[in-house]
């Protein structure tokens, strides 16, 4: 680990000034401290934003505004989240452990980096994300956890966040602040696919901070939503596949379907094709399966993760089936 300085941001302006002069942002540190220690990342200065005001409040239109420094555990336990956005509470609770959720911030969770073991293995493995042009040892290696959608010949890593899968499904918007002022980006446009530049993971610009996340008012399918995570052990493990799903049904037909997938790509994957295929149809297992198959038409299995395609299909059918059953 290279030596670095540490300062606690006095307020947002102070944080922005420090980031502008080259400091790395520190949230809970659950990812960054680890990456610095493993020498995957380096920093000369850290600015701690985890003690900035962390509020969760209703927006004027009935949505929710969440400050970037809110801890994952606090967000999951918040009454408005549990009642109006159950998919988000469940996704947060599916992530990591109670200790890590107490530390992790919303901003850090969005910007956490892949858990690809070759990305972590500085001494022993080639990784295009860590060192552009070096090659990718995951391609012919242990790629059970890697992507089946949107991967490139440069990188097959997945984004590991559970929370972000729910945020993608909820049409969440990320608020950013930087040297050129403030802007907002839909979460589904925030993370980018690897293409030829896997070192670029998001549209965040140098000097920018995530200041918060905004959720639109809950639609019927959001109020009636769930998150299911399939993993190699039943707790404290990253997702093989995860599904955020929501359904609204009226007179035996689906009026609104929302689906996002985790564990399949370098970004949380909003399954818009599957959603479109479900509108106005009867909520049957066959309809669910046909819809998710349309989404997965472009899926490409690697040597070790072909099972993910069938697993994604079955998990979507199970989640939507449970939601339809509970409503009926």
């Amino acid at each position, binding site marked *: *680990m290279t*030596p*670095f*300085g*540490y300062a*606690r941001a006095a307020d947002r302006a102070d944080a922005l000034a420090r980031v502008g002069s080259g400091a790395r942002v*520190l949230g*809970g*540190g*659950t990812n960054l*401290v*680890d990456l*610095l*220690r*493993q020498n995957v990342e380096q920093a000369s200065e*850290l600015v*701690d934003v*985890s003690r900035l005001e962390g509020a969760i409040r209703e927006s004027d239109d009935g949505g929710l505004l969440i400050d970037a420094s809110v801890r994952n*555990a606090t967000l*999951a*336990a918040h009454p408005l989240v*549990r*009642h109006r956005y*159950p998919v988000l*509470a*469940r996704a947060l*609770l*599916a992530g*990591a*452990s*109670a*200790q*890590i959720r*107490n*530390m992790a911030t919303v901003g850090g969770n969005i910007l956490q980096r892949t858990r690809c073991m070759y990305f972590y293995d500085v001494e022993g493995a080639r990784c295009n994300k860590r060192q552009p042009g070096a090659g990718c040892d995951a391609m012919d290696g242990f790629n059970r956890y890697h992507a089946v959608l949107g991967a490139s010949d440069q990188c097959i890593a997945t984004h590991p966040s559970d929370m972000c899968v729910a945020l993608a499904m909820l049409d969440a918007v990320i608020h950013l602040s930087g040297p050129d002022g403030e802007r907002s980006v839909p979460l589904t446009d925030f993370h980018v696919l690897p293409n030829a530049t896997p070192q670029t993971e998001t549209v965040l610009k140098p000097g920018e901070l995530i200041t918060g996340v905004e959720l639109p008012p809950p639609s019927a399918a959001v109020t009636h939503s769930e998150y299911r995570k399939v993993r190699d052990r*039943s*707790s*404290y493990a990253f997702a093989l596949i995860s599904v955020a799903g929501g359904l609204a049904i009226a007179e035996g037909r689906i009026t609104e379907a929302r689906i996002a997938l985790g564990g399949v790509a370098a970004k949380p994957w909003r399954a818009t094709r599957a959603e479109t295929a479900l509108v106005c149809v009867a909520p049957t297992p066959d309809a669910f399966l046909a819809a998710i198959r349309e989404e997965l038409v472009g899926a490409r299995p690697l040597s070790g993760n072909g099972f993910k395609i069938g697993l994604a299909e079955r998990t979507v059918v199970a989640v939507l089936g449970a939601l339809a059953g509970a409503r009926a």
Partner: protein
Amino acid sequence: MSIRVNGMEVLPPDDARVSLLDHLREHLHLSGTKKGCDQGACGACTVLLDGNRVLSCLTLAAQADGSNVQTIEALAAESGALHALQRAFIEHDGLQCGYCTPGQICSAIAMAEELRRGDPSYVTLDLAAGPPVVTRAEIRERMSGNLCRCGAHNGIVEAIEDMLVETAA
């Protein structure tokens, strides 16, 4: 500023790279808190930071500046009388080698408070309902951040159940 460790004011380290775990063990000689993986994967280093359970291996000591840290050393009374959960661990064989035990115990104490507040877990069926019903499945899920490589989990869960019943009574 300073860190309050088990009621004592101590200075943060000069080097910002030092973790809270190393600060406790190497500089303050509080070796009750254990280092298992040093990367957030085992829970052996769990301590209470302002009452919340956190991993001291992924916390920089500087991040704890101005906060209250409680470690396993603070649990027994001055007289040496053990905390109810420490007694329950002994009674139920909640340990073999004992390496994970300080982390398990700190973690479970904070877990009891989370349950009391009504915080849900991944296995809580109805997230919108009131305080979750305490079942073994709830305890196992809530304690999944603490691994035990000796496999003493059954005793650990029983000991925690005991403590929860005792404090509820």
